[in-house]
Structure formats: C-alpha cells, structure tokens
C-alpha cells in the first residue's frame, strides 16, 4: 500500500515537473494576430498573466483604422482597470497604422521597429538554460506583484520634477555664464 502511494506521488511529481519544463520557454515575442475587434475575442485574449513570461505583440494590421483604435482602447483600458503594467515584467506592443500619440502603450508601425532584444529564435532549452529560466520565473513574479498604478505615478512625478530641475539648471548656467564673462571683462578693463 505504502509503495503504491509512493509510486503515485512520484508519478505526480514527474508529471508536474514535465509539464513545468514543457511550459518553460524563452521570453521571446508572443505575436497575437487579431482578425476582429470584437469584445468577446479580446476578453478571451486578455488576462492578467499575459505579459508575465514573455513580451506580447498585438498585430492589428488586419483591422481597419477604426477597429484598430477601438482595440487599442480596449487593451489600454484592460491594463488600467486591472492595475497591471504593460511595461513590466515584459512589455506589450501594438503593431498598428495609427500614430504613437493615440495611446500610452508602446506602438510601432512595422515589426522591424520592435526592440531586437526579445527577437530571439525559439528552440528547445538545455538543462542550464531551463535552470536559469526557472530562476527568472521568481523575478518575473516579484516584478509583477508591484503596485503598477503607484509605480507609474511615482515615475511620472519623478520625471516631471526632474524635467523642471533640468530646465532651471539650464537657466542658471546661462546667467552664470553671462555674469562670469562680465566679471572677466571688468577685471581685464
């Protein structure tokens, strides 16, 4: 009886290990080609862990311009309403014909414009890589667990105040430069 129980536990462990290994993949782009801009399809596609393990590219090129705009709005709303970040652990990109200014999500017009860092060739990982990938899994989860909204606010505030500091520093340098020149001219007579 005990042996049978042990055997069952081993089978479960082996099975879990196997499925985990199988699920582990390189963090390369996951391309999602949208055929329609329906709410149902988007509801099925969008979930909280979509950018947990790899960057995502929504290809909206097949949709018309109105459909693209609606879909971009839906994706953006999803991330904001769920208090999730579309920048980390992995970024979410939109491939669209619209201008970048219509959304806060990173938007590109061509696939070639996507960052090359995640554009790796996917293949089976060896033992070392699998081990490293499993280590990264913990980091991904830690990064994801941060409060996205609070972090975005903090980053925005930090950016705004440092932009002001930069401008004031430029102004200060300008006045300091003039004053130094005048003082030097006075000294030289």
């Amino acid at each position, binding site marked *: 009886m005990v042996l049978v129980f042990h055997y069952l536990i081993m089978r479960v462990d082996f099975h879990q290990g196997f499925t985990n290994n199988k699920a582990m993949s*390189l*963090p390369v782009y996951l391309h999602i080609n949208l055929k329609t801009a329906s709410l149902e399809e988007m509801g099925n596609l969008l979930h909280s862990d979509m950018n947990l393990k790899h960057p995502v590219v929504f290809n909206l090129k097949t949709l018309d311009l109105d459909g693209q705009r609606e879909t971009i709005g839906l994706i953006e709303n999803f991330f904001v309403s769920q208090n999730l970040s579309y920048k*980390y*652990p992995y970024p979410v990109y939109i491939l669209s014909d619209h201008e970048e200014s219509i959304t806060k999500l990173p938007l590109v017009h061509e696939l070639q414009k996507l960052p090359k*860092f995640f554009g*790796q*060739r996917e*293949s089976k*990982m*060896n033992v*070392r*890589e699998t081990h*490293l*990938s499993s*280590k*990264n899994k913990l*980091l*991904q989860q*830690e*990064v994801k667990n*941060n409060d996205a909204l609070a*972090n975005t606010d*903090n*980053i925005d*505030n*930090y950016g705004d*105040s*440092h932009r*002001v*500091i930069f401008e*004031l*520093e430029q*102004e*200060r340098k300008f*006045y*300091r430069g*003039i*004053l130094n020149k*005048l*003082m030097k*001219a*006075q000294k030289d007579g």
Partner: protein
Amino acid sequence: MDKKRLIKNSEPEDIKGFEEFIEGQHNDSSFLPKGVGGGSKKNEAGFEHFTFLTDDAERLTRLKRMLSEKLPFSAKFDQSDKLIKDQRDEIELLKKKLFEVCDKEGSGYRKSIGGIFDGYFESVKKA
C-alpha cells in the same frame, strides 16, 4: 596550467576513462559529446540563449530593484522640491548680481545703451 590537446591516431583502448578530458579526437569523434570543440550550430544557439537569459535575468533584477527599492525610497524622501527651491533662489541671486554689474557707472551695458541712444537722438536733434 594543463592544456587540452588533440590526440592523433590514439587507440580507443588507450584513452579509455579519459574521454571527458579530451577535447578533440582525430578521425573518431563518436565517443565525444556532440559539438564539443566542433562549434556546431546547436551549441552556438544554446550559448546564445544562455546569454540572452542571463541578460534578461539582469534586466529583471534591475527592474525589481527599481520598483521595490528605489521608487518607494525616492517617493518617501523626495528632494525635488528642495532642489527646485534652491535653484530658483540661486537664479534670483544671479539676476540681482547681473543687474548690479550692468547698472554700474561706466559699465559695458551702460556704454552700449548710451551709444545707441546718443546716436539716435543726435540724429533726431540735427534733423
């Protein structure tokens, strides 16, 4: 320091037990691990992926540090307002000094302005 050397025409019997220390074997690579020293494409790709995963781990670590340590710290002990105030004070001081220098008797600024005004009003007077 020991160096791994290519052994030529060795009898398989002679090198039994030392296979893992030998990097290349002339005319017979069947007992060696695949790709060792040969630079096969599979191994190159594996190395590439390992580097990529290492870089990604570094990226995630930095991201984690920024989000969980640096951002809360900078939000809690924000020095921006103080810096902005100090810069504004210094700019005011510099402007004041500039004005004093320019307003001095015989200063370059006064001379230039005097030249412009004199030139204009002299011509008006003559006319």
